[in-house]
């Protein structure tokens, strides 16, 4: 189906979005197909959704999966009953899409140093910038489920309560998954972490 979609089509008048700070109004406007509301919802969640996808499926496929997530978000809004927070629901979709993708493609492509160098971000505060690359590489070795909890809790800074809501599990499960993920990471990174502590060059390890 080689249809080229005209992007600038007439849409329902943006009636409420100006004041739509709360989720309910935003959701209602998106359901009506209001362009500004949809874009607002996208911008509210793009960073976390893309970050989740990027860390779980890898740089190469992140864009494709993030697209899929938002298409599903807008397609699914009609059936969204509001028994979870909008953000929780969006991130749950993102985690599910990413984990499904990861399961299909088994191992994510190795994180290349070039790709990481190109990532714009806050000024690195790490004492050892090489460590962050090692951490990325170690994460690529983890089972996808462990990556998900590391991204949600450690990188995105969500509480275990929020993680549990997104992963649809108990708070205790979220905690024990995080413990296992970090223990596995430490096993993988052992020498690098130890070398840093003794002030030696990690390259030697």
């Amino acid at each position, binding site marked *: 189906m080689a249809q080229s979609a005209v992007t600038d089509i007439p849409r329902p008048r943006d009636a409420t979005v100006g004041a739509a700070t709360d989720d309910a109004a935003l959701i209602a406007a998106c359901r009506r197909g209001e362009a500004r509301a949809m874009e607002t919802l*996208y911008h509210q969640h793009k960073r976390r959704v893309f970050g989740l996808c990027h860390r779980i499926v890898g740089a190469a496929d992140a864009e494709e999966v993030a697209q899929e997530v938002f298409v599903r978000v807008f397609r699914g809004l009609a059936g969204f009953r509001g028994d979870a927070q909008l953000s929780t629901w969006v991130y749950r979709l993102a985690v599910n899409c990413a984990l499904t993708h990861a399961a299909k493609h088994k191992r994510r492509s190795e994180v290349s140093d070039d790709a990481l160098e190109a990532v714009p971000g806050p000024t690195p505060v790490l004492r050892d910038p090489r*460590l962050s690359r090692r951490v*990325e590489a170690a994460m690529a070795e983890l089972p996808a489920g462990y990556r998900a909890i590391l991204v949600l809790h450690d990188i995105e800074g969500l509480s275990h309560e929020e993680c549990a809501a997104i992963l649809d599990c108990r708070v205790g499960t979220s905690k024990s998954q995080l413990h296992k993920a*970090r223990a596995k990471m430490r096993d993988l990174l052992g020498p690098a972490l130890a070398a840093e*502590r003794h002030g030696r060059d990690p390259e030697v390890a």
Partner: protein
Amino acid sequence: MTCRELTELVVAYLDGELPPERATECRGHLRVCAACRSLADQHARLRDALVELPAVEPPPALWAQINARLGAEEIAASERPAWRRALARWASGLRPIATPAALALSAGAVALGVVHLRGSSGTGTAALTDVAARATPAPTSVPVEPPPVVVAVGRDALDEAADRDGAADARFRAVTADLLALARAEAAAWPASRAKRFARDVERREQAVLAAAPGRDRERAWHELTSFLERAALGEQVASR
């Protein structure tokens, strides 16, 4: 505290997730155990490294790509044959019928057996008995005699039953209108004799709906009518392509 315990708790300890007394025990052990101190150091480094990983920014073109996909889906939806669009609406319109309330209604009627209340007028007997059945879950061993509470069913309960039946009717009416419009559009291309037969069949089923008592009988009649219209729309679709 043992090293083994500390190994289990170290992540929660570093994240500040432990109750104060547990955290104090961890600190006490770390003061005296160099091996665990080294382990905790590594975990702390790891946690800091994870927290400080550079943020990834979504590419600026992402929204345009999403928009393009949404647009393509809308075009596809608009090009779906009319009968498929109507069936999709039909299916979503029918789903609320099978709510717990509706299931309880029919289950209640079955549990009580057939209860005749010929004296009651207005809203219809089936709905009345159903409401009674719901008010008193009847023991399955004595199905024949309706419990006396039936008489005490108040005006509110009757209204409620009438509202429910009314809502069900409205939903079916909307669905039928959709399907009928479609089926008629298809029927315009049919031979006159077939179109006439179709119109007669539809009318017979409409009469059946009007004649049926509110509640399960009417619901059955509605289903008869809607599934007939559905078959008509589908059958024509298959035959014409």
